[in-house]
């Protein structure tokens, strides 16, 4: 999936993936897509909840070799 920015949070522990995601999304325009890579096992639930509550849209998630990938469209 095409993204406008890629954020690598691999190896980072809670709450850093979500803190960095927020920082990154603030740099994007509404409608643009942020791609996030994470290895924290809580990241999936965290990002789903975060996107829902902050008005962004989680478009897609994938997992390969222990790396979770998320695509979030800025609301």
């Amino acid at each position, binding site marked *: 999936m095409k993204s406008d920015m890629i954020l690598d949070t691999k*190896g980072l*522990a*809670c*709450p850093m993936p979500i803190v960095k*995601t*927020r920082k990154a999304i603030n740099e994007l325009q509404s409608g643009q897509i942020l791609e996030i890579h994470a290895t924290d096992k809580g990241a999936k639930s965290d990002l789903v909840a975060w996107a829902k509550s902050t008005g962004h849209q989680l478009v897609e998630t994938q997992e390969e070799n222990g790396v979770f990938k998320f695509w979030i469209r800025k609301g």
Partner: protein
Amino acid sequence: MEKQKTTIILFSGDLDKAIAAFIIANGAAAYDHEVTIFTTFWGLNTLRKDQQVPVKKGFLEKAFGWMMPRGADKLSLSKMNMLGMGPKMIKHVMKKHNALSLPQLIEMAQEQGVKLVACTMTMDLLGIQQEELIDGVQLAGVAAYLGDATEARVNLFI
């Protein structure tokens, strides 16, 4: 859209509890909440500078100052402290897992605009003065806390 609010009262001066408080605060800030951490009693020690600050104090206040941990890096664990071995082990494990240390979490919280507040009444009791606290800490009392808490949907006492 008006920002949502979150408040945390950090009463405890235990390392593990302070870490939990600051992780929640940073998470809430990432949720774009206006976050307030109101420190009182032993929680004040979390915000102390790690070096000694020359201020005028009475004997009891000085004694308190010596007995209490000077800053976030000196706190002990609520369980398994083992005369300071426990905190060393926890810090080692946190580093291994790439988790931020408590001083880093506090710095991150300030960077994210988390409001750090020190309770003036307990500062007086424990003989802690504003100069001894890290920069950027506001002073307030219970009414200021309640003002924030009344508008917040997440209010925690740790």
